């Protein structure tokens, strides 16, 4: 449905009157720049308008769309020094209509550009990963899905997507639905406010219906091998889809954002009680760099569904899914696939004793040490090698640790957390132990002195 209508009114003399209304120019081209962090799309359309020397009035209306009138801008693409866009008026008692006054020194066909924000068009990235049988490689495919619920059909639009978190003060959908484009300095009468709420409710309903229609559209995805050009601008990434796309109101479209890549992955398992409780969490880890067949551009946030090749006929098993955040170039990726039972981490308290009691003049205890010995058993029941990261949290910053066995290399993460990193072969078992001493009361002071 075409709902944005442009009417050019030509005036021989600059007076305010209804005058001969001539041209109804069609959209020549349209470019959509769609954001994913907020419901906002920058639309830029060019139209050839036949203008006359003198004052021209251009009427732009957008009933039943979600255009933000405060973002409307018009610009001549030729004869710029001879064409003055004087003002933009939102006339009284008419909704969703703007009127430009254009003073021109030239006449004839002139290209103009009209740009505005609209709400209701969105895009998101999602991914499919297929693990090789030994789970050492993952074929990664990236997609974007663009959805148009803006009320307007955009035919043959150049589609661009922005990855990034922009600062927005007002919701575009709110600006699009205001009674007056810039609000009013007067309080809006109560009766009026009520009707406004009502109309907004019905609008929400109709959006709900659109969402249903959208599910149908998804079952027949349009696959096209188009290139997506990626570049970085300011703090954002701009993805431009090759050629043009037609996205009708209510429809969405899936487009590949990057082609399948064979990414070497590590099967990483993590254990940290403070973060995950007493569970082992499975991660797939890789890096957004050349070594991992990636690293051309950041990877936008999205959900990755992970499958696994189970046999030579390429039958698939579904492993799980993970939402992940935006990944800059060069950053490590860890995809959380959830808790598992086939890799086991079991920390056990093997010994508890106290020592080094200190007494005051009255014979009361003023300081002591607690010594705990933990054994951590690790079991990999899978047929592939895995990497394990075990974090241990203490409830004190007055501690020392002694390690036994050959896996006792740890890294201090913060004041009360250490991390052990251990590789386990297929169907292998390992264990390591550590002795944790915590210092209490006046033993804290002695501990500080001893460590200076």
């Amino acid at each position, binding site marked *: 449905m075409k709902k944005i209508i442009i009417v050019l009114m030509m005036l021989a003399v600059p007076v305010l009157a209804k005058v001969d209304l001539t041209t109804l120019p069609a959209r020549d081209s349209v470019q959509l720049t769609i954001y994913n962090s907020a419901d906002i799309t920058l639309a830029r359309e060019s139209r050839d308008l036949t203008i006359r020397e003198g004052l021209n009035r251009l009427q732009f209306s957008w009933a039943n769309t979600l255009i933000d009138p405060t973002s409307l801008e018009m610009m001549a693409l030729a004869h710029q020094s001879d064409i003055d866009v004087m003002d933009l008026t939102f006339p009284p008692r008419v909704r969703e209509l703007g009127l430009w006054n254009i003073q021109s020194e030239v006449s004839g066909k002139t290209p103009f550009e009209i740009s505005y924000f609209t709400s209701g068009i969105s895009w998101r990235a999602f991914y499919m990963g297929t693990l090789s049988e030994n789970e050492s490689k993952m074929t990664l495919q990236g997609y974007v899905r663009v959805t148009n619920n803006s009320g307007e059909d955009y035919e043959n639009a150049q589609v661009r997507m922005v990855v990034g978190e922009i600062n927005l003060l007002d919701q575009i959908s709110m600006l699009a639905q205001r009674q007056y484009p810039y609000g009013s300095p007067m309080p809006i009468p109560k009766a009026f406010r009520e009707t406004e709420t009502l109309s907004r409710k019905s609008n929400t309903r109709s959006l709900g219906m659109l969402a249903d229609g959208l599910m149908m559209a998804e079952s027949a995805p349009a696959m096209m091998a188009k290139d997506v050009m990626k570049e970085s601008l300011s*703090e954002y990434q701009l993805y431009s889809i090759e050629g043009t796309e037609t996205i009708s109101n209510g429809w969405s479209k899936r487009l590949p954002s990057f082609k399948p890549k064979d990414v070497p992955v590590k099967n990483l398992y993590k254990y940290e009680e403070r973060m995950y409780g007493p569970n082992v969490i499975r991660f797939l880890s890789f890096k957004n760099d050349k070594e991992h067949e990636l690293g051309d551009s950041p990877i936008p946030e999205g959900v990755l569904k992970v499958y696994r090749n189970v046999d030579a006929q390429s039958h698939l098993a579904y492993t799980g899914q993970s939402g992940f955040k935006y990944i800059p170039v060069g950053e490590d990726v860890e995809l959380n696939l959830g808790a598992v039972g086939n890799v086991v981490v079991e920390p056990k308290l093997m010994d508890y004793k106290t020592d080094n009691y200190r007494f005051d003049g009255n014979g009361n205890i003023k300081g002591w040490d607690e010594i705990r010995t933990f054994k951590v058993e690790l079991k990999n029941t899978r047929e592939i090698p895995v990497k394990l990261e075990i974090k241990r949290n203490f409830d004190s910053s007055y501690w020392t640790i002694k390690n036994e066995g050959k896996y006792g290399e740890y890294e201090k993460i913060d004041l009360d957390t250490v991390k052990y990193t251990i590789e386990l072969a297929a169907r292998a078992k390992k264990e390591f132990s550590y002795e944790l001493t915590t210092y209490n009361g006046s033993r804290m002071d002695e501990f500080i002195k001893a460590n200076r």
Partner: protein
Amino acid sequence: MKIIRTILVLVMVMATMAQGRIKLVALPERADSIVRLDNPQFTLIEEERVLTLQQGVNKVDFSWKGVNIDVDSIRLSVIDHPDEVKLLNVSYPPNEAALVWEISSNQAREETVRISYLLGGIDRLVTYKAVADKDETQVDLKSYIVLRNFSGEDFDNTQIVLDYGQTFMRDIRHEETKQLQFFKKTEVPITKIWTFDARSMVWDPETVPDQNIGIPVSYRIVNDKKSKLGDNALWDGKTRIYQNDGHDSTIFLGEDNAPMTPVGEKVELKLGNSRDIVVTQRKMDTKDINKIFTKESDYRNRRLVMFDREELITAKIENFKDKTATLTMIQQIPGEWEMLDCNMKYTRKDNNTIEFEVKLPARSADGPAKKELEMKYVIRHIRANQQPRVINR
């Protein structure tokens, strides 16, 4: 619709006859009018009208309906013959939105007067549009007046004035909103800044695995001559910032409310967040030292009077961008404190706030550019009910 009327009331001046107002036909039209919008809260209307005055005392009736005029703000000034034409007094008829001026004139004449008043329901917003170049070193800045007339009054061919910039002659209808560009400056220099504020932002992104901790990014513009501005204070208003994308088009970078910016002052406008700069801040150690207790002989009854807490903070800063960046890092240390060790230069912003400026190179083939802050400080803790003066330091 015209709701504000000025009616010339001619009354033969007789000492005893002052009752009853007779409105006469003389209904002078507005000549010139000005809508002055330099006060963000109140809009001043000035209109000129030509009065046909008789010799002697004339009564001029000024009345309005359905508009909100601040009665005490109404002023009348005589333009052509201020020495011969005098405003004698102003009276207010009962239960009417009106007033009556008594004007004396030494002869019959056509006299131009200016009527000024504050009118409610009409105001303006100021908005900006800035388009940055691809390298983000400068912006083209346009400013617009958005005139909102919900006053109940129509104005024909009236002059619209802010305090500087362009003025406009326009018709303004009741319930009309009009957007007018009132200045444009090209190639205004900007500085791009990234800020990590440890007071309000998440320290360790690993604790929120599903979320990027974006670093706020702003453009700084100085309102001075060097920046091609500096003639006037910049009005406060919503600013939308775009960037030239190098393909004859722009992308939208973000928007922020610019505060009122006097000449010589700077304004910082937030665009959005960078997710290519990552700060991981952690407390690596904390220890209590120099403990002083009360002197009870039983250790269990002793109370801690004061102690010093040493803290070791590290903040790893990674730049994943292929461009350099300068990060402003704000750290807060509460109470009475002393820096023991710090591997980066800082400036003290106030007693509890320090600021670092960290220059970050671009990422290399090996990965992100990294810098790490390490600071160790000590904070004095004193038990709340202890008077500092009784403590023997």
